[in-house]
């Protein structure tokens, strides 16, 4: 009997405190990992050094010893002016990048005065109807010195055009602008469900953005390929990884199809992942993501530039892990999740505020969330060395398992005819719905403990202050957009929109035409309306 067998015997003789040990994603975990679990790993081939292929250990040679991750708190609510004040507060508190949250009407392409916008203006983010609002949103902020991330998808081209024109009016040329538009329509069909147009024209808008950015806004991240929402909809860590990368490959293929060179647009693609509660599973996910992307870009798509191989990503802690019960506990959850993101080598991070499950975060809650990152960065010591968990038998084994699981999913998606075909067949939607239901049942059967929800509960009144958005915000915004529609040069608007419609029916790049309409102060809803008449609308698939 060797030592390992002796240990196994000893272990079996002892009691386990529960019948099975699994990750947040229900993946079984062994009691012990040994060199045998990572025996297949070849250091040079599978791990390598930070900043070199296959980038498992990080995309930069120096990682956080050079520069810390960007602390980027997502914010936006009410009117452009109110959000502008919040941004200035955040910048004064040491935040280094802006992240704009839009309200639902803006996300869905409706003006604030549209019937369907009723009750939702400025509620979950800022209401932007026209260039006028965008100018107000960034008043007194030097757009050549901040990087701005905008969480906008179906109408991304329009909001991006507004941002470029707003900068142009401040005298800042577009090549100086840095930032990100989420612009990831595939995950909308899969999980988040804020779609407007059918997939084909949506992809055209995205490749038009690729082309325009390459010429005019070269420092802009054109798509933030997002697993965050896929995870929030109930997916497992593996599903988040696999579906997000599959979306990424689909964008690469769309770019190649319209004649772009891989190295001309892939370096501007970035990623956006979730950080859930299972620390090691999450770290393995990020490490596997980098390796898979680098391998596919190099081997499958023939990328030459090193920048094309780098999977750069933003992380947000898991909103779905927060609880309405004992909300202060969410501070602790968020801290562990942030730890996982940093140990996984994220480029930027948003930490959720404890009250986000109840309402929009208050200033105090936002500050604690930001401080969580600062404590991690400056006090915990985790940023002192690069990829500190490499070589852990457990972490390497999990990383390999993630990569293999993702490759299996890629094969299945390929067999179905690719991402669009899989969406059409409801493959992703069904996988996610099943995982979400399983998770909920595990909680209800007490197989999974959530502190304060199904264990360690107490009767209490929630005693934290909440931020409220009153109806006056909506009223004022509706007034502003109606006033604009009266006072602008409407002949110019009509001609710009007519030009846009002609271009939409053809195949020329839409971005310059959208910019002309934006300059004429055409509203988002008007521009979307024109595109809807040409492109049609996407309709929901019923999957439970």
């Amino acid at each position, binding site marked *: 009997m060797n030592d390992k067998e002796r240990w196994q015997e000893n272990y079996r003789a002892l009691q386990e405190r529960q019948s099975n040990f699994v990750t947040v994603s229900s993946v079984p975990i062994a009691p012990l990992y040994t060199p045998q679990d990572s025996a297949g790993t070849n250091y040079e081939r599978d791990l390598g050094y930070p900043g070199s292929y296959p980038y498992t250990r990080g995309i930069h040679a120096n990682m956080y010893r050079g520069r810390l991750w960007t602390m980027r708190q997502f914010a936006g609510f009410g009117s452009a002016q109110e959000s502008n004040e919040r941004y200035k507060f955040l910048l004064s508190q040491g935040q280094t990048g802006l992240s704009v949250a839009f309200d*639902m*009407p803006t*996300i*869905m392409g*409706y003006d604030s005065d549209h*019937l*369907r*916008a*009723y*009750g*939702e203006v400025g*509620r*979950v983010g800022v209401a932007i109807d026209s260039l006028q609002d965008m100018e107000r949103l960034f008043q007194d902020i030097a757009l050549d010195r901040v990087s701005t991330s905008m969480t906008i998808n179906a109408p991304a081209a329009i909001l991006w055009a507004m941002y470029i024109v707003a900068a142009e009016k401040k005298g800042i040329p577009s090549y100086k602008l840095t930032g990100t538009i989420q612009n990831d329509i595939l995950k*909308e069909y899969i999980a*988040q*469900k*804020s779609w407007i147009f059918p997939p084909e024209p949506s992809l055209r808008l995205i490749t038009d953005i690729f082309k325009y950015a390459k010429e005019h806004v070269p420092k802009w991240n054109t798509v933030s390929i997002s697993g965050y929402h896929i995870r*929030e*909809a*109930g997916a497992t860590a593996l599903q988040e990884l696999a579906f997000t990368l599959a979306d990424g490959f689909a964008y690469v293929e769309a770019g190649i199809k319209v004649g772009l060179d891989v190295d001309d647009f892939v370096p501007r693609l970035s990623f956006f992942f979730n950080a859930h509660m299972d620390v090691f599973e999450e770290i393995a996910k990020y490490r596997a993501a980098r390796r898979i992307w680098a391998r596919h870009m190099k081997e499958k798509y023939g990328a030459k530039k090193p920048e094309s191989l780098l999977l750069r990503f933003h992380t947000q802690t898991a909103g*779905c892990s927060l*609880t*309405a*019960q004992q909300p202060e506990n969410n501070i602790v959850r968020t801290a562990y999740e942030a730890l996982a993101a940093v140990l996984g080598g994220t480029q930027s991070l948003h930490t959720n505020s404890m009250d986000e*499950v*109840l*309402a*929009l975060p208050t200033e105090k809650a936002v500050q604690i969330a930001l401080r969580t990152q600062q404590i991690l960065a400056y006090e915990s010591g985790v940023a002192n060395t690069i990829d500190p968990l490499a070589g852990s038998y457990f972490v390497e084994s999990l990383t390999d398992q993630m990569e293999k699981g993702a490759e299996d999913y890629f094969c299945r998606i390929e067999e179905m005819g690719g991402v669009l075909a899989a969406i059409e067949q409801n493959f992703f939607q069904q996988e996610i*719905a099943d995982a*979400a*239901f399983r998770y*909920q049942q595990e*909680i*209800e059967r007490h197989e999974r403990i*959530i502190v304060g*929800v*199904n264990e360690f509960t107490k009767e209490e*009144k*929630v005693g934290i202050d*909440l931020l409220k*958005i009153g109806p006056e915000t909506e009223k004022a915004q509706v007034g502003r957009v109606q006033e604009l529609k009266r006072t602008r040069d409407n002949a110019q608007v009509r001609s710009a929109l007519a030009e846009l419609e002609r271009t939409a029916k053809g195949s020329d790049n839409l971005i310059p035409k959208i910019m002309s309409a934006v300059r004429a102060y055409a509203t988002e809803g008007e521009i979307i309306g024109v595109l809807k008449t040409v492109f049609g609308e996407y309709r*929901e698939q*019923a*999957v*439970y």
Partner: protein
Amino acid sequence: MSQSRIRVLVGKPGLDGHDRGAKVIARALRDAGMEVIYSGLHQTPEEIVEAAIQEDVDVIGLSILSGAHLTIFPRVKELLREQEAEDILLIGGGTIPEEDVEVLLRQGFAEALFTPGTPTGEIVGWIKQRLEKKGPEPARAND
């Protein structure tokens, strides 16, 4: 044998696409033997009430995460009143702060509200108990 089934419309008003909760609930109600009509996303109060009437549901369950609960619940109640369909129970869930829950319940804009973390079994139990009180008519198999 009675063929009677509890019928529930799970509605998703508002513009957001966060349907994870709505779908988990739909499955749980189905597994509890109910017939669940799912409205689909982005429904207006008018569309929800009209569907509820055509489907003759016993309960409307609204999932709201957009923060618009203070406008949506009163509007749905008002429409039910206009259609003389106040016998349909109105319940809901989502990100609704405690104090708004109290306001909505006190003013009768909803019969019950379930905040995040509520076990689905609790919702099933509530519906079954409420409809039992209403009293099902005795079935007559031989008519």
